[in-house]
């Protein structure tokens, strides 16, 4: 089974801090994603990465950056945390189909981040 591991289940940080959320997958997946989940808004894509050292902005990239130096690891960085970034953060990974088709994503258990 695919395992996507997020380093922290719960995290509390202060306004202005630089925050790192880590995600590791063990199935050699090319694609990795960061979402935030807020009540009534579903999942919103922050950033994604098609492969190592590649990154693309999602729908809500402002205030965030990402790093993908190794295939298995995708880090989300809050450059200067603000209270409106309090949320549940979900990491996902997948590999494209053999015909480069869309395939389901595999999700981690999430990190609930509180910014005080």
């Amino acid at each position, binding site marked *: 089974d695919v395992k996507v591991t997020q380093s922290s289940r719960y995290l509390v940080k202060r306004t202005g801090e630089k925050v790192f959320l880590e995600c590791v997958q063990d199935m050699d997946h090319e694609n990795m994603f960061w979402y935030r989940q807020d009540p009534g808004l579903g999942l919103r894509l922050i950033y994604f990465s098609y492969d190592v050292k590649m990154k693309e902005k999602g729908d809500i990239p402002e205030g965030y950056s990402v790093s993908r130096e190794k295939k298995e690891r995708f880090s989300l960085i809050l450059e200067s945390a603000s209270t409106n970034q309090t949320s549940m953060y*979900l990491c996902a990974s997948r590999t494209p189909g053999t015909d480069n088709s869309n395939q389901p994503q595999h999700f981690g*258990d999430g990190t609930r981040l509180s910014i005080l």
Partner: protein
Amino acid sequence: AQSVTQPDIHITVSEGASLELRCNYSYGATPYLFWYVQSPGQGLQLLLKYFSGDTLVQGIKGFEAEFKRSQSSFNLRKPSVHWSDAAEYFCAVGGRSSASKIIFGSGTRLSIRP
């Protein structure tokens, strides 16, 4: 514009009763459709997917969904729910290519009445 609508924010059904969760989508090309389930404190797990072929797809945990192109719908059904089905359910749509983004609905929270 591409979008997914789950019109029901919260549904409560009795254990043993049938269930239908609604999903409507707007997508310009042939859609790939997914249903995910999220149990409390966990990430999302794929229930089923529709890519092509038979419009009635079977998934895990006894769930099924029917793709109706004319109605732009992909409703999730289960003939008899169990208390363990209490969770949040997300419908999602994407394009055929892996380069296309997946768009998620806002979710439907399912509660089970004993």
